[in-house]
């Protein structure tokens, strides 16, 4: 009789199956580990970038969002934003940035943990990592909206620039500035991690579903016998 824990983690792979076709059982592990690698690597790259172009800034202004910090012309963009009454960029997503590294570590451990689980519950463990890049974009939208709609009404240009929602991705226009927002290397790495997990899940199902099914069959036979 299988315990509750065994029901969650599923059957272990019999030695004879491994001997016959080791790769079948190795593939999901490989894809999950690659996903972890990509996810961890993504921390070191910017996820998102906003570029401001205006005639008097021939090289443009840009701010890069890593998951834990902002880099680039933050001071200059803040200086310009004060004209329209936008709060300093550093005030955005402070909680998210402070938790981001821990979150990636947790996601990584969930993926690694899922390697040892051979049932459909694996999906639950890796689901946060799959959704993670989209959560990032959603959060970015939330803050852009929050900042764009909450302009200081006493700012110098408040009568000229009405509250607005800057686009998360794409091209916008504000006074003489063209704003270009786009995802960056870090985001692509996280997205690649999601895809690796999905592929890993396919191989996972191919490898372990038969084992789970035969286990269930054995269990039901055992129950019948009882």
């Amino acid at each position, binding site marked *: 009789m299988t315990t509750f824990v065994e029901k969650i983690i599923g059957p272990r792979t019999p030695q004879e199956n491994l001997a016959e076709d080791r*790769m079948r059982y190795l*593939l999901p592990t*490989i*894809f999950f580990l*690659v996903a972890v690698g*990509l996810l961890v690597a993504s921390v070191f*790259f910017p996820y998102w970038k906003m570029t401001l172009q205006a005639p*008097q*800034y021939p*090289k443009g202004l840009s701010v890069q969002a890593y998951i834990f910090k902002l880099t680039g*012309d933050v*001071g*200059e963009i803040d*200086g310009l934003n004060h*004209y329209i009454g936008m709060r300093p960029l550093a005030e955005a997503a402070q909680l998210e940035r402070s938790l981001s590294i821990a979150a990636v570590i947790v996601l990584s451990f969930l993926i690694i943990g899922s390697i040892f689980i051979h049932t459909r519950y694996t999906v639950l463990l890796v689901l946060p990592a799959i959704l993670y890049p989209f959560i990032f974009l959603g959060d970015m939208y939330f803050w852009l909206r929050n900042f764009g709609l909450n302009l200081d009404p006493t700012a*110098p240009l408040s009568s000229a620039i009405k509250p607005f929602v800057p686009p998360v991705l794409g091209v916008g226009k504000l006074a003489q500035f063209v704003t270009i927002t786009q995802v*960056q*290397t870090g985001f*692509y*790495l996280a997205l*690649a991690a999601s*895809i*690796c997990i999905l*592929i890993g899940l396919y*191989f996972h199902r191919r490898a372990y579903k038969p084992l789970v099914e035969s286990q269930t069959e054995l269990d039901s036979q055992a129950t019948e016998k009882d």
Partner: protein
Amino acid sequence: MKLNYVKKYFLPFILLAVIGFLLVAACSGAGGDTETPESAAVSGDINAIAAERGLTPADIEAAVKTYTPTGMLDEYIMFSSGGHSGQMFVIGMPSMRLLKTIAIFTPEPWQGWGYGAQSTMEVLDEGNIDGEEVRWGDTHHPALSETAGEYDGEWVFINDKANARIAVIDLRDFETKQIIKNPIAINDHGGTMVTPDTEWIIEGGQYAAPLGWEYASLDDYEDQYRGMVTFWKFDRESGRVLADQSFAMELPPYWQDLCDAGKLVSEGWVFCNSFNTEMATGGVESGNPSFEAGASQRDMDYMHIINLDKAIEVYNAGQTEMVADFPVISMQTAIDESLLYFAPEPKSPHGVDVSPGGEYLVVSGKLDPHVTIFSFDKILAAIQAGGFETDSYGIPILAFDDVVEAQVEVGLGPLHTQFGPDGYAYTSLFLEPAVARWTLGGPYEDLNNDPAWSLVTKTPVHYNVGHIAAAEGDTVSPDGKYLVSLNKWAIDRFQNVGPLLPQNFQLIDISQPGTTMPLLYDMPIGNGEPHYAQIIKADKLDPWEVYPEIGWNPAIQSLDPNATLAGEERIERDGNNVEIWMSAVRSHFNPEHVEINQGDHVTWHITNVERAYDATHGFSLPGYNITISIEPGETATFEFDATHDGVFSYYCSEFCSALHLEMVGYMLVQP
């Protein structure tokens, strides 16, 4: 079985590879697209425009060589003296656009130079003479710093002929950092020139006077009046001339004129020409020969040949006398230690220029149609041979025939010589007026097809050329390409703007060999009377875009202890002393209200907290003669006594933003 195995697991690894490829593509995707300019097709309209404006094909060619469309940068940068404007001009070439005026000896309000900012007042005060505030200068000869005889783009120096001062300009921010008054001389001319590694800056005198400028009657001219050359030690680390490691050499009261440092084979030697070896003392009002006549009697004057390496040893050995607390090697010591020789040079010369390899010294006698070329090898041999005549002070004179290599008849009124990379030398001809191209011999003979030591061609200039400057034309590796004729008179070249006319800089194309040397462009100089200029390849300069950190003090090129970061603005009072820490950013000063009492002493610090390229703010305080330029990152400090009461609106004087007019504050001085 094996094949099957590969087939079976091929797909997953293909997938991994595809993901990897996509990642690489995503990472490198931000490369940006390159634009290729459309090829220049000349339309038929060009001819119509040219006909309408009366332009010749040569004019069109010159236009195409010099026209610099918006956004295109110049290939060379010229540093030109400003003459008695006391400034230096920075000019792009070949566009001949004035890029900047660097304030040096003369206050200049746009740069806030000398109108309150301590960093500028302190530099100007270094140039005070016996406590007198001398607030102008006559800048003559810029000298770019060199490394191994090549311009390195780090520093530029210049002299003030009128007051015997030299200045140090830092090319990280193009601002003057130091002014040094020569303690023994009241005027100079043969400066500034640098030794090939910029260890020494040369400052030669001009009109003889008692060293230390004490009184002596002109009747005692030969006994009491003296010439001099000063060697200033430059320290790159601190960016300063170290006066306490510098020294001078006493010279006869001939009027030393221009100097040049030896290079390569002649490194360690310095050459200066002189005039008025007649020792005329003028007095035309008393029936004596005027200076212009009295100083032009002899056919030969003396080129001074100075063994600098040996002079440094003599100075280090302490064989100096103190004049006005400054160490001077006496003439007698110079003679005894074999530091100084003369070579006769024709006639009333103006300029001695060392060839790129250091082998030849080119002297032009203003009143002799030749350039005279001396051989450094022959000079060494003559010194070695010994058996000299001496002048009346006992200084050995080498025999003219022993040291001359060649003479080339170039034309009337030859003055200054520059060099090209192709064996050509260029000499300005004041009287003709023209620029002459002639050939060097010896190791330079095979660099062109023209015979050695001969005149090749002349290009007329407009008018009365003084110095000329060729691209890197006084370094060990001249670039050729362009030459600028620094003309004193413009006459009919520009619209009449009243009796004081601009000078005329004429750009000449020297890129082709032989007799082709066309004039390209005229640039009026309406704000000074330049003498010499040097031209450096633009890519050797690497100035800052903004000061490296917020709170930068340009005087010390490091952070200012009174830097005011945003959020630290405040006003503090201690008795009658009020101290203000202010920030400036587009488009406000903080604080905007400064309330003080009449009689207070005010110390005011302003930091421009901007990091944007070109986001300079001005600070102008009316009624108190204060105007300051605060470049991005800079901290400026000024002090004043609030002597008069009233309401004073201080404002940003550099149009900084759309709300620039609103960048204002009130200083309220209560009676």
